């Protein structure tokens, strides 16, 4: 009986749904969900908040007992020290930061170009080995690079990428997930658009530039986000394939700082962590609607 009433309430006179999936407005039934979702979110957020706060703590507050989730005298000392410590390696921290910026920009451009052009070809073109390529790319979603670290090492040596700055970039251009997501997104663009362009004599390159690129913006934002997140925290190449410090990344530099683990370097490590973390999240917030739009088409069929 009670159930029945609720049913009627929801459907009376074609009212807009406010209970159930993707409701339009707030309804008391949603309180139950908030009751557990908000506490869980807070618990998940705590470690991050603590890091952010610690990054601005002066040394005496870092040592303070009990540990506090707020800072009394916020300071930028930790950030300043982060850039000064590097004096003993003879390479300024700004060099590492510059490397990371270059790597990030080039990788984002490369990943975006490859994802869209390959996604377009695998989605809209017809040729003999297409199905096989699709299957192989889908299988590569399961690819775990750490599993084949040893043969990859030899490939890097043979292709002269060892001790070469490009090792930060080239292996990362293979991103099956980005290609897959973009291909799924292009699948739902109407064929008619491309057919009309072909009749007008447009080449695939022109179609890509004029039709596909403008329409795949949501998928592109996903690829760019994944690419950014991967590049910003890139350490593998610095740890394994580069001997000279000059080509290494900022994430690597920060990782080495926090290895010490003493309280005195904790503030600096926290400042480094903040620099590693915030840009990824800000970018996610900016690109969120495009990302969620892409994800709606992400299913493997």
């Amino acid at each position, binding site marked *: 009986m009670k159930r029945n009433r609720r049913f009627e309430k929801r*459907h009376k006179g074609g009212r807009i749904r406010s209970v159930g999936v*993707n*409701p*339009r*407005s707030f309804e008391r039934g*949603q309180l139950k*969900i908030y009751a557990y*979702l908000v506490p869980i*979110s807070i618990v998940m957020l705590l*470690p*991050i908040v603590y*890091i952010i706060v610690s990054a601005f703590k002066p040394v005496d507050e870092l*040592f303070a007992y*009990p540990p506090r989730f707020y800072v009394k005298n916020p300071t930028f000392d930790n950030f300043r020290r982060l850039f000064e410590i590097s004096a003993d390696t003879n390479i300024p921290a700004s060099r590492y930061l510059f490397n990371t910026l270059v790597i990030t920009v080039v990788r984002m451009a490369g990943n975006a170009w490859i994802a869209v*052009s*390959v996604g377009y*070809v695998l989605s809209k*073109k017809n*040729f003999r080995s297409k199905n096989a390529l699709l299957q192989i*790319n889908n*299988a590569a*979603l*399961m*690819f775990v690079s*750490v*599993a*084949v*670290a*040893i*043969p*990859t090492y*030899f*490939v890097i040596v043979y292709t002269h990428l060892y001790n070469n700055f490009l090792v930060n970039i080239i*292996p990362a*251009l*293979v991103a*099956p997930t980005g290609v897959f997501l973009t291909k799924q997104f292009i699948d739902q663009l109407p064929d008619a658009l491309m057919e009309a362009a072909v009749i007008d004599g447009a080449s*695939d390159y022109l179609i890509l530039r004029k039709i596909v690129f403008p329409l795949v913006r949501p998928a592109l934002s996903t690829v760019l986000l*994944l690419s950014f*997140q991967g590049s910003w*925290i890139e350490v593998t190449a610095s740890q394994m394939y580069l001997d000279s410090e000059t080509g290494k990344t900022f*994430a690597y530099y920060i*990782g080495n700082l*926090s290895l010490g683990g003493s309280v005195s370097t904790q503030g600096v490590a*926290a400042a*480094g962590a903040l620099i*590693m*973390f915030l840009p990824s*999240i800000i970018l996610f*917030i900016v690109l*969120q609607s495009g*990302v*969620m*739009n892409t*994800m*709606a088409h*992400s*299913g*493997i*069929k």
Partner: protein
Amino acid sequence: MRRKQKGFAAQRRFTDQYSHWILLSPYVLLFVLFIIIPVGAAIGLSFTDFNTIAKPSFTGLANYINLLTNDAVFMQKVLPNTLMYAVFVGLGGYILSFLMAWSLAQLTKRPRMLLTVILYSPSVTGGVLLSTIWSFVFSGDKRGLVNYVLLKLELIETPIQFLKSPEYLMTVMIIVGLWSSMGIGFLAILSGIVNADTELYEAARIDGVRNRFQEIIYVTIPSIKPQMLFGAVMAIVNTFKDAGTGVLLSGANPTPDYAGQLIANHIDDYGFIRYEMGYASAISTVLLLLIYVLSRVVSRIFAERE
């Protein structure tokens, strides 16, 4: 002059006719170099004895036999650790992702977006960042957050060395793993639920679906099977990809008493520390096979039945 034009036209025809291969070629080339060759080489080397100095010598299945019969660390520590981690972080994280996604889908747009950002953000904290954050929380002195709370509640008398002691390392790794498990797979599931056809739910109610639980089983999951599959594949990959957490948190490879040793660490241990490349490749092959089989299993579960 005319000839030149003709040549240009022919060239144009070539680039247009094979445009798909031209567009594919950079990706295919890099794909072969950094995925196909390494996987092939790992399988090939797994049948050899190879120490990086002498040429690999063929030894048949010896590596696999050793792995299954002689490697006490693998059988007693690494494999059980990996399975435990896979169940809690892989399967547990996947279920958690689904439940959180489902819950978020019941909310209005703005609060949903805010909470999504919060739940998603831990997943971008790879490697370095992860260890920095969690060494604050589980720090072994009394200023560590967990130790502080436990001391305050008088549950313990002296601070616990969470990251250095074999008893606790795996638990910490599972907590950290679950915390950062809501990544791209979670977004896919959330987006699938939000964008599913709402009429399905109304039809199901008329057909006698009575409560939220039935709704999830009979409507939500079947309508987002492809996203569930994508999420599952991502969960599996993330679980087995994880080589860093235990080593980074404890600051040692091997981890104390092998308590946090996962299969990917075992590969590193043999490959880059002991230089037994053949043997390490055999472990790699087992890992790849494990991921492949699991992915087949989940595709069976979520296959679209026509």
